[in-house]
């Protein structure tokens, strides 16, 4: 679950980040923006009525504790789940605070990297990078609580979403680290050479997916969203071994900005490439 957002808050943004954003804004004479949008994305974000303001970054290096699972039981490893979730929240919040400092309406093209480092891979590095943008005519685009919107949609998808009568509110996430039970010896022997379903695996994957998806949906409901687009569920063992896996659901929560959701009629083209 995300921590509540207070506009103007600088929770955990180090001095060098605040100073750096001031340096960008304070350059005499001209406003210079830095953006990781491709040329086509840049064109579409501008065509949608927005100007890019700058590159924003949220990061958090987190020490992940240790939890020894009960080998023969399907269970959520709450210590690990609870480490990944606030670390992501910290990184996202810092990125949002940077966007707020720049006076942005939101951040598009957010990429979230997770990598494991250090002794025994006990460190998790969370990095969120995106381009802060602002509407040229000052239409409100922030989330209901004043939080700058975030979305992992590309510039192309952002343009299409607005044309279709929706706007992004927030990048919503849910996760669950789950331990899949080992099979007992007796069960393994009784199943040798037979076609059988490995029910503990099937069941564990369902449970873990459901928990992750439910948590993502709860975040979207807290943002009063109408739906989630581009949702995907990633699974990754992050080096915990073959019986422990993290399910991570991520998507962009959207709200309608108009009654009708009709696109202009697309032209049909037949590309003569390839």
């Amino acid at each position, binding site marked *: 679950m995300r921590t509540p957002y207070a506009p103007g808050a600088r929770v*955990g*943004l*180090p001095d*060098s*980040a605040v*100073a*750096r954003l001031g*340096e*960008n804004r304070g*350059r005499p004479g*001209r*406003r*210079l*923006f*830095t*953006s*990781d*949008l*491709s*040329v*086509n994305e*840049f*064109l*579409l974000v501008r*065509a949608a009525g927005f100007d*890019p303001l700058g*590159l924003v*970054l949220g*990061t*958090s*290096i*987190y*020490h*992940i*504790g*240790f939890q020894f699972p009960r080998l023969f039981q399907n269970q959520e490893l709450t*210590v690990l789940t609870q*480490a990944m979730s606030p*670390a992501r929240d910290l990184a996202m919040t810092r990125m949002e605070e940077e966007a707020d400092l720049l006076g942005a309406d939101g951040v598009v093209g957010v990429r979230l990297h997770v*990598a494991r*480092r*250090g*002794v025994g891979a*006990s*460190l998790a*590095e969370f*990095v969120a*990078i995106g381009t802060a943008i602002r509407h040229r005519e000052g239409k409100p685009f922030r989330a209901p609580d004043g939080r700058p919107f975030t979305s992992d949609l590309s510039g192309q998808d952002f343009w*299409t979403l607005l*044309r279709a009568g929706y706007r992004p509110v927030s990048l919503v996430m849910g996760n669950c680290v789950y331990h899949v039970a080992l099979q007992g010896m007796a069960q393994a022997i009784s199943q040798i050479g037979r076609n059988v379903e490995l029910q503990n695996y099937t069941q564990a994957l369902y449970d873990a997916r459901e928990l992750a998806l439910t948590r993502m949906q709860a975040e979207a409901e807290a943002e009063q969203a109408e739906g989630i687009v581009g949702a995907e569920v990633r699974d990754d063992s992050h080096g915990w071994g073959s019986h422990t896996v993290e399910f991570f659901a991520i998507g962009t929560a959207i709200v309608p900005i108009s009654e009708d959701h009709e*696109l*202009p*009629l*697309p*032209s*049909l*083209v*037949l*590309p003569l*490439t390839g």
Partner: protein
Amino acid sequence: MFGFRPQPPDAEHLRREEESRRNLTAGGLPLPAVERLKRLAAQQGTPQHLFSSDLSVAELALVEDLGFVALGQVMGTSFYQLGMQWRTANWRDKDQGKAFGYEMEVLTAGWGNARRLALGRLQQEAELLGATGVVGVKLKEKAHVKESGAIEFSAHGTAIRERELPPLREGSPPRKLFLSTFSGQEFWVLRQAGFRPVGILVGNCVYFQVLSNDQWRVLMRLNAPNQELTEVSEAMYAARRLALNRLEEQAGKLGATGLVDVQVDAQLKVGQTGDETETYGAEYHFTLIGTGIADAPPPPRRAPLDIVLPLR
């Protein structure tokens, strides 16, 4: 004695090698490259002229549509040996367990110089061809650290100039030119939107963070509870600040109003044993490479922005 005898060194060959090396030391190009490019430049506007390019057919057509002609492929490369820099954390006892971070200036400068040399040589090759721009610049970097402590950086692209400009005459000053990472398509779209590229810009920073004893203990203890290592997080922001400011300073000097297509590369090494020196702490390599753009009047023919559904 056995039928082969080493040829005595050719004095002319040695002289040319010596001159090439002098040029390289000054950040310039070796003689064979200079001579080939001058020959190509002299052929411009004559029936012998031939251009080579790594543009695709569509890219070539779009670049020509904007009123440019392709002049030839250009490249720049530099092999660079990174200097030695001690990591202060190797003497942890002396700094009494306090956290502090500092920029590893030798490594920052090393990576920066290698990139600057390679891009500078690319630009010189384009200047010799009388170009006013280079499109589709692809950058490649490789660390040969294990073998020789060396890094390699190279860049190649296609030199272009406006069709109505005359070929560069021998001895006239080089033209002002831009470098860009954009493909032919991106270049066309950017011009449509009312912008032009001004140059490829690089900002980098290698930053080292010595951890306090408290956070060091967390790092080394597998069963420490969940918590953030704030000092490492802060180090990334410090590295980002230095790298991004360098990038934007250069962009400002070139008269850019913005930077697009910026590639962000943030690499962290923490608590690991390095190949040569033991690293106790966190080391960030933060690199930003992008193309600066500035306002320019769009071409008279404007393509409408439309939605299409490809039937494929």
